[in-house]
């Protein structure tokens, strides 16, 4: 077929496939064609421009209603939070990245302004962590982030941690509850991939030998990038409750929704405290069970606690903890507990 105008290109099915990268065969064909027919290049570019514009414009129109709704929802939500002055501050600074973050976490942030989080006091500056073959390991990093290492997993913290960013290297499965720090992105390297978060909670399953990675995001927002030679290319951005699985030979990872229940069940499979300060125990329980725990008596924080839980209900864990403290507890609502 002879192509004498850009219309001829626009009306050619294979050419459209090339422009929209629908199939590789057509892409290869037209790349080759462009090299062999330099005189047609202007026409081709014009046609390609229109096709791509059209594609994007249709996509924009398709996305617009959802986007407008999202914006309106944000405005509505913000209106409610405006009544509390503390919330206003938090919402203004955190809203952009934290639209979906849990109340527990925001509140925790608000109580611990930019300075060092409380939790850091209990953290030790270690650079290499390894969970045992039979037991998990819970780690408090000194920026206030919290990590659960699954059995057999290894985590190495980069020596530059906390300077420009927060880098670490993982093999195996781990859960991260990231302390918010906009200026220092939290980066977990796993083989050829890097998962970046600002303040968020997510789980990574890395198999570096098989070059596989699975990312599950509980709250906040993360991006996953892959190394291509010297540069990184963006593979995916996740929304809360989304998961992606990546394999080396796979081109387009698909986002899937995952079940909240399974995620929570995984978190509480094994919870171990050894001479842990009560303050830390309570903060960890908040993370494990997605609840908020408050104490009426400040002295409680100075106690220490030993205990091992496997798939235990929050009820029975709280009973144990309160028994050791010689205190009582009650649920104020479904996710807020008070110890008195």
């Amino acid at each position: 077929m002879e192509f004498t105008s850009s219309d001829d290109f626009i009306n050619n099915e294979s050419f459209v496939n090339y422009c929209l990268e629908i199939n590789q065969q057509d892409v290869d064909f037209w790349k080759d064609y462009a090299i062999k027919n330099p005189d047609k290049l202007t026409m081709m570019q014009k046609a390609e421009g229109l096709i791509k514009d059209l594609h994007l414009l249709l996509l924009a129109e398709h996305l617009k209603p959802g986007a407008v709704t999202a914006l309106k929802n944000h405005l509505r939500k913000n209106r409610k939070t405006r009544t509390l002055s503390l919330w206003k501050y938090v919402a203004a600074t955190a809203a952009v990245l934290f639209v979906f973050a849990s109340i527990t976490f925001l509140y925790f942030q608000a109580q611990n302004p930019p300075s060092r989080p409380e939790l850091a006091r209990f953290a030790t500056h270690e650079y290499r962590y390894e969970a045992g073959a039979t037991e998990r390991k819970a780690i408090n990093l000194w920026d206030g982030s919290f990590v659960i290492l699954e059995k057999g997993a290894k985590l190495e913290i980069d020596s530059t941690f906390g300077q420009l960013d927060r880098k670490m290297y993982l093999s195996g499965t781990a859960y991260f509850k990231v302390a918010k720090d906009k200026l220092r992105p939290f980066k977990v390297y796993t083989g050829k991939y890097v998962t970046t978060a600002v303040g968020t909670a997510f789980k990574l399953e890395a198999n570096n030998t098989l070059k596989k990675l699975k990312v599950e995001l509980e709250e906040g927002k993360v991006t996953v990038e892959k190394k291509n030679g010297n540069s990184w290319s963006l593979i995916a951005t996740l929304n809360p409750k989304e998961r992606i699985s990546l394999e080396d030979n796979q081109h387009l990872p698909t986002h899937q929704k995952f079940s909240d229940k399974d995620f929570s069940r995984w978190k509480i499979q094994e919870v171990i405290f050894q001479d842990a300060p009560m303050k830390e125990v309570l903060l960890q329980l908040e993370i494990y069970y997605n609840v908020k725990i408050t104490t009426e008596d400040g002295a409680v924080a100075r106690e220490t606690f030993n205990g091992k839980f496997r798939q235990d209900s929050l009820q029975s864990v709280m009973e144990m903890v309160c028994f050791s403290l010689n205190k009582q507890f009650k649920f104020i609502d479904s996710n807020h507990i008070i110890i008195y």
Partner: protein
Amino acid sequence: MNVSHTDAELWRSFCTGNEQSFVDLYERYYNTFFVWGCKWLGGEHDFVKDQLHDFFIYIWERRDKLALDVNVKAYLLTSFRRQLVYQWKKYKKIESTSEFADFAEADASELLQAELITEQFSKLEKALTLLSPAQREVVELRFLQNKSLQEIADLKNTTIRTTYNLLHRGMTKLRSEINEKKFLWLW
């Protein structure tokens, strides 16, 4: 009822805290900004979509600090472009900024550029509304959902020839509406 406010009116109303005006502005510029952002970054639909949302929330939060007399188009486009550059660098960890320098500091021509960009898209947008429903449907199936002519024919229970003709007529219409000679391909 059919009163359409000018950009300047919407802007002033938005700066005083009118949510509806703010949403109107978002709706007015959504398509242009989305298409422009995607072209600029060479894809990255999700990223652009998120940034657009974040950007508008950002200007909403700052509404009482904004100047009232601005060229809305140029102002929004310039600010959005800055945000994209900034966030993109953060995502991609681009150390050297040279690649983006031209875009980030082209202040002098910003107004002109904003005009060109919006003009270009509004033509195509307008042209799209002039398609017949059947033409529009085929165009969408082909260019948004990436269906082949055969698949569309199967779906609509018709022949591939009919599908081709419908698509062809639709595209011819689009082309004539956007008036190719004046059409500026900026990229």
